[in-house]
């Protein structure tokens, strides 16, 4: 599968996850978000950027607890919970936010 971003074709897997995460940039993130029906706000970007930073360091997306704690620190305690993250990413913060961040899909019983 491929995603069309500003006239450029970007390769994704059959579920829409980026094939090569080094290709990722803000425009690609926005294009994936549009396909997911998400309008990227500053809060969305905070989550996506944190996911990328964490992945860079640990080679895996953060566990939900790690993510909620980090977001709580950045955006205020009342937002440091999975309910808030589900409001941002209704299909689930782990999978949908990873997709927009250009990261592989978390696998397993999650």
């Amino acid at each position, binding site marked *: 599968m491929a995603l069309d971003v500003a006239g450029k074709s970007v390769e994704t897997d059959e579920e829409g996850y980026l094939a090569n995460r080094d290709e990722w940039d803000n425009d690609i993130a926005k294009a994936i978000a549009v396909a997911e029906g998400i309008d990227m706000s500053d809060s969305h970007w905070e989550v996506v950027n944190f996911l990328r930073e964490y992945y860079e360091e640990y080679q895996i997306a953060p566990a939900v607890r790690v993510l909620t704690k980090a977001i709580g620190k950045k955006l205020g305690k009342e937002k440091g919970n999975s309910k808030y993250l589900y409001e941002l990413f209704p299909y689930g913060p782990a999978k949908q936010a990873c997709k927009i961040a250009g990261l592989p899909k978390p696998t397993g019983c*999650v």
Partner: protein
Amino acid sequence: MADFEVPELKEYPVIPLIQEGSMAHSKPYVAKPEHQKSVGYPGELLDNWQEVAINKMGELVKGSRALQVFLDTCVKCGACTDKCHYFLGTADPKNMPVARQDLFRAVYRRYFTFAGKFFPKLVGAVDLTKEVLDQWYSYFHQCSQCRRCSVFCPYGIDTAEISMAAREILDSVGVGQKYCNEILGKVHVIGNNLGLPKRALVDTMEGLEEDIKDETGLDVRVPVDQKGADVLLITPSADFFAEPHIDGLIGYAKVFHQAGISWTVSSYASEAANFSMFIGSNDNLKKAAMRIRDAAYDLGVKRIVVGECGHAWRVAYSFWNTLIGPMDFLDKQYPMPSHIVEVTHDLIKRGALKIDKEANDHRRITFHDSCNVARGSRMGNIPGGQFILPREVIKSCANHFFDMAPETIHENTFCCGGGGGLLTDDLMELRIKGAAPRMQALKQVVDEHGVDTFVAICAICKTQFAKSLPYYDYSMDMITSLHQIVGDSLILGPTE
């Protein structure tokens, strides 16, 4: 919300009128060559796939008397037809267990029985064509290997065994399922389904210790790779990663802490799940299980405790001994393996834990028996212990417990709809429809008793319900780990 029709929950369960071919389109993504190779199978459909498939079938039938008996004995009595949650949820007659078996049986008859070889039409025997293989791929990925049908079959025919055999043949000719095989590849290399490396695991666990400290003021440890610990905990990696699983992990940590049991998880064997069972692969089953034996030996533990994972408990309880046993280096005074529910149950019965049941008074609880625990294993040293122990633990920790209808619990339990390697987004229609019978039973206790807490002891069940509950207008927060109920009611701190 969905681009398919979500089954309507009626006042009482209704067996649907059949809709021929209604799920013929359902099939999971096919494994990529690298996923196939990581579990020892050819990367893509072989040129001589038919010959390989038939040889493999012969090998499997010869190697398993059970499989051969299951294929030979069906008398088409029909007892199984309305017992499968996928049939009840989809109305596709090929999801009747007998029809699913017959997809395999017809080919078996053609190549391995006298009548089928010479008079195929008379006995419903068919050639293994590409069309038949495609049907296998579709409908053997519409079976969660939950074994409910086998409870009602007068001959005890176990569709799960046939489904596992079919998937192994599919793998052997190069057409595996992406979800299972990609995950198994990660287990073989990294040690868990998620692909969570040691550094991330340690970081996550340190974060959890902080959270527990914030909540309780106590230094409750969640140790990784601690040599000389008494217990090696083997738990699904979802327990490290997702909700509500992680609240269960916190519950285990609190139990071990309060009981004064030293424990650890292993970064080498950081996974209880063993998806090899779902694809019917004994070689992979052994290879994944061996990591656990090696970790237990290297860490020098006395016992292995298995966390809340349904099929892992079946693998541990029913297969470990022949796969990776005997593990003589473990302390023989403990049952091998032990389930975390057995550990907690025993501590509660001995008065080693102090419980404040009222801490759970805001909850009205029911319990979902996971298939592989209910029909593939036992707990404790009493018949039916796998049903009795979890309920006794809940009732010791909470005042309001209500069971679902008897035909939907214990050995009659309905699958969550996502078991057997089907917990993947590309099978969402099947998963949501297959959840219907369980949702129907849940509705009854919600309506009659105001149940708001739906407890499970399996990572697949928990994730599947978190996803499927909202389709039936229930909150995803209902699904709760059993050890969250325990952890919330446990009185921590110095004992008298």
